[in-house]
């Protein structure tokens, strides 16, 4: 077990607790960068998909995991990000401008949505956000002049400083682009967590009463969480559009919203790792399932509802046996090895406390 001797406040502030973890993450990034030379195009595409989901997961994690506001409407924000980026590019904006702009536009929509949403709690917020998901479909159809409604749109070629990036013809470049966005979003997320706003998010999540008493403006903090969360989700949405190549009103359905929420729960609420672990499960599980059914049935069996059934079962199992998600399990396994042979079975047993000040609302 490593013990950190802290000799300055820097120790608590810096990104990596020690050189070892710095090297681990640096190695991870290095492997990620050279991945296009290690994998064929199919698997590289799958990894790209994982990363895009992870970005979207980071967006939702900021809102649900950090700030405690459940959202089943994030598919709508994926759609806003996707359409605004591609419409921007169709109107002559370069990708480097249209892409961040898509994030900003989605962020503004998210902040606007927070105005009614700050008044809702728990299950009611979830219901309101479902409405958003349902509405998005219809609104895309209604705005046909811009969105081309049911017939949908095709993602244009991305050009950055004369370098052409396209998902099918240059999957490696597209992968690097997604990787860069992933790293940037993770860094921003990590920075927020070690700054006052990130702590205010956690304060709002755990106790609004005492957050208020400490001077945290609940509505502003929630609005900031919605804005940032939706901005990141918007970026993921734009990348999803480029990844899919073609999209219409049905691409960003409510199923995507539900998968996103499931993903962060399975991965582990409230942790950056959780968004990535969850993305791996969500993106690879359909492939793994179809490969398994192919192997068993020789490629001619289609079992309707198999995918959703398996997803549901996994979610239930996690909520029952590992509420902290894959990241929680990972922490336990790591601690077991670090302490070997001194780890005890009950070390992670959760204590319950039933004391709560009566809510002042």
């Amino acid at each position, binding site marked *: 077990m490593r013990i950190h001797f802290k000799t300055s406040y820097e120790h*608590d*502030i810096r990104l990596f607790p020690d050189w070892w973890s710095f090297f681990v993450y640096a190695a991870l990034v290095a492997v990620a960068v050279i991945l296009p030379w290690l994998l064929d195009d199919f698997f590289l595409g799958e990894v790209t998909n994982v990363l895009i989901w992870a970005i979207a997961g980071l967006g939702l994690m900021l809102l649900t995991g950090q700030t405690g506001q459940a959202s089943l409407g994030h598919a709508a924000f994926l759609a806003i990000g996707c359409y605004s980026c591609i419409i921007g590019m169709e109107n002559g904006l370069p990708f480097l401008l249209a892409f961040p702009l898509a994030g900003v536009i989605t962020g503004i929509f998210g902040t606007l949505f927070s105005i009614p949403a700050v008044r809702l709690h728990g299950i009611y917020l979830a219901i309101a956000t479902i409405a958003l998901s349902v509405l998005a479909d219809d609104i895309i159809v209604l705005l046909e002049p811009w969105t081309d409604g049911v017939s949908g749109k095709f993602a244009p070629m991305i050009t950055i400083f004369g370098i052409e990036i396209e998902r099918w013809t240059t999957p490696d470049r597209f992968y690097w682009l997604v990787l860069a966005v992933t790293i940037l979003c993770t860094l921003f997320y990590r920075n927020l967590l070690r700054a006052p706003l990130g702590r205010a998010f956690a304060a709002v999540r755990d106790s609004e009463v005492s957050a208020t008493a*400490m001077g945290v403006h609940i509505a502003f903090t929630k609005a900031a969480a919605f804005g940032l969360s939706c901005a990141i989700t918007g970026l993921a949405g734009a990348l999803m559009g480029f990844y899919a190549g073609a999209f219409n009103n049905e691409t960003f359905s409510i199923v995507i919203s539900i998968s996103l929420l499931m993903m962060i729960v399975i991965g582990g609420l409230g942790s950056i790792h959780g968004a990535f672990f969850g993305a791996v499960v969500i993106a690879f599980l359909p492939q793994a399932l179809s490969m398994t059914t192919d192997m068993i049935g020789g490629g001619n069996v289609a079992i309707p509802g198999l995918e959703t059934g398996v997803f549901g079962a996994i979610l239930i199992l996690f909520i029952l046996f590992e509420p902290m998600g894959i990241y929680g399990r990972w922490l336990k396994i790591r601690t077991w090895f670090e302490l070997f042979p001194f780890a005890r079975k009950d070390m992670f047993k959760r204590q319950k406390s039933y004391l709560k000040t009566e809510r002042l609302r």
Partner: protein
Amino acid sequence: MSLLEITNATLKFGGVVAVNDLSLSVEEGEVYAIVGPNGAGKSTVFNLISRFYEPFSGQITFDGQNLLDRRADAVADLGIARTFQNIELFDHATVLQNLLVGRHRHRRTNMIEEMLFTPRVRREEKKHREAVERVIDFLDLQPYRNKMIAGLPYGVRKVVELGRALSSDPRLLLLDEPASGLSVEETQDMRWWIDDIRKQMGITVLMVEHDMGLVSGVSDRVLALADGAKLAEGTPAEVQSDPAVIAAYLGTGAA
């Protein structure tokens, strides 16, 4: 001028008068205790000061400023920090993070700066941590610094909550039953801390407490409250020997 002044405050919940035409003033640098039977309206007074409740009538001023003009989250900016009767910590955060939330009123950086973690954010962050470390030293919280609240025993949580309030460098500290649920030794510690908070840090303390030992040990003045109204006010000894207080607590003897 008093630091905190409540004038003729009244608060009703439906037909229940929780606070009835109550006036009190807390002077700078004193420890002022509110005692009274359960349901007397002690915590309600705190919630009025924290602006969680809106009084029906009356005035509350802090250092000459009208508190009733302010939103609940703007009360902390004036330098009023509080603890809660049933401990309201941020359960899924560490002790250090909890104390750092106490620094929120000193936040000088905005969202964009924090996302980029500019050198200014880093400098501010170091200042916050320095202030919090002083509180950790003062309350002997070193062993728990990086522990999650969810796994801590009750007594430690109570101290962490005091620490979170202290981290904000308040001028007025509101303690809602600081000794409830604490052992004799822990209550003794609490007593010394309250003494030091007043004498070394120069912070005014307003507290609600049932433990008369603690109250008479630390407070300069005591207010006895019953049914939301003032019963008696004075030094601890005066209040304890007041016939009205004895009647409220013990009944009037032969029925």
